[in-house]
């Protein structure tokens, strides 16, 4: 269950077309049954310092690392390991201009908020305040407020329960 509907954090900015091979490269497939080991390689090819930056931000206290990407985030494979390792690294939310459909659904199923907005208005290191219920993002660094596109109610319900597995454990089936 996601209880905190307002999330504060700092942006870690990535570019367009970050593929699931960037997030969790196929050469580490042998580690997929050892998620803590797999998570050490998160985003290794796209941004080698990603894991240490997320860790540094998370250690700072209330603030969380927010992954901010360009268009078509998570294109490629259906591997749910991609949002799993992003979550394990300590990222609190994902923002992107657009997200590939399987990745988007997988991230929500893992209980990670994914919000689609104009991420050009967010700079690396910007301080953000995300209102999950209203779908609004306040960029505290620039003073700009961004609105996000809405997701179908069933996805909001899954996210609210903390992911698809907790949702199904509670409801036993899909509720429209």
């Amino acid at each position, binding site marked *: 269950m996601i209880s905190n509907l307002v999330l504060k954090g700092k942006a870690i900015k990535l570019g367009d077309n970050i593929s699931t091979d960037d997030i969790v490269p196929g050469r580490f*497939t042998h*580690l997929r*049954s050892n998620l803590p080991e797999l998570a050490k390689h998160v985003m290794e090819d796209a941004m080698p310092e990603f894991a240490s930056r997320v860790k540094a931000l998370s250690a700072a206290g209330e603030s969380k690392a927010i992954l901010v990407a360009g*268009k*078509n985030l998570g294109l490629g494979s259906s591997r749910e390991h991609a949002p799993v390792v992003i979550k394990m690294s300590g990222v609190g939310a994902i923002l992107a201009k*657009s997200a590939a*459909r399987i990745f988007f659904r997988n991230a929500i199923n893992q209980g990670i908020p994914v919000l689609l907005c104009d991420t050009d208005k967010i700079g690396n290191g910007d301080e953000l305040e995300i209102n999950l219920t209203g779908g609004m993002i306040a960029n505290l660094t620039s003073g700009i407020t961004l609105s996000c596109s809405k997701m179908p109610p069933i996805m909001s319900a899954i996210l609210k329960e903390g992911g698809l*597995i907790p949702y199904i454990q509670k409801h036993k089936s899909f509720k429209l």
Partner: protein
Amino acid sequence: MSKTLAEKILSLKSHGEAKAGDVVIVDVDWAFVQDSTGPLTIRQFKESGFEALAKPQQTIIFLDHAAPSPAQQLSNDHILLRRFAEETGCRIYEVGDGICHQLVAEQFANPGDVILGSDSHTVTAGALGAFATGMGSSDVAVALALGKTWFRVPESFLIELNGVFPRGVYAKDLVLYLIGQIGADGANYKALEYSGEALAQMLMPQRLTIANMAVEAGAKVGLFPGDKITQDFLVGHRRGDNYQPLYPDAEANYEQVISLNLDRLEPMLSLPHTVDNVHPVTQVKGVKIQQAFIGTCTNGRLEDLAVAAEILKGRKRHPSIRLLIAPASRQVLIQAIKKGYIQNLIEAGAIILPPGCAACLGLHQGVLGDGEVCLSTANRNFKGRMGNPEAMIYLASPATAVASAIRGEITDPREFT
């Protein structure tokens, strides 16, 4: 209400009226996992407290990605998957049987079926008119237990195909060109629906190649209508009774219409590191390659090996090239042996890999070295895809791949066809 093919199938399977934008709960006919995403799916299934499968005979495990396994961890994942099959009574296909999408096409998919796979190229079965799509482990785990999933009904793009392929131009060139036009996210969340006069000449292997890459434009499905070719394929694969002529209504509402004339196509390539970075082969000729790879769920079928064997007959690969061939299934391999293709290929200097995903995803059987270039018939050329972020992958048809393997550099296949 006039319906697209996507709306028609989702209406049937949700037992109601499904129109683009609606969210519906549908019956799942086939659900499958493969060995790189299956272990997480099974753990999610057990974590949810599920014990039994909703439809054991319509649940399939494929051991195709690490086939045979190159690492002890992956061998242990295979043990986990085999145990799950024993416990639940689902179907399992072993190492060496072939790629999940090829086996689904050969043995299971029917027009109007809903097929979920924990693999993004599940869209391949859209060639048979199945609403087949890739999903993550949690979604598939829940579908295994409930026999149902939810979908947002996609808007559709109509892809009108007219004309005939010129010499040296194939379905792969068409689909690469199309992705170059649409862009890697241009059809995100959408259905691609193929139509037009060209379909009458387009056999199932070509349709499978085209449907396979729908996801590379972001699409949820790539659907072909049911016709004589669909029916013949099903009859030839001992399930002719499952044929139904499903096609969109004439007045269906399409978000976009894209028309392509096959006559005007030429051999195409995707350049590193995105699939939509598409250029004609004539613009890229001469780039040195170290490896050529023919296979995968995109181009590992009998007809692909036939093209390769025909061009290589009496010729040899360039001495500096590794030419890897992975048939998409055991059936494909057996037929290729009977027809003499395998002998031609081996005599030309090719290495025959076991049926499976082989070098495609960077696990084994052809991992690239730093700075090396591979010309592959697969569907993805992302940085790091073939096991090394310092390597480059170009995507092309089997004809372009073998022509380039003969010369040692990217070569227009029309020089040999």
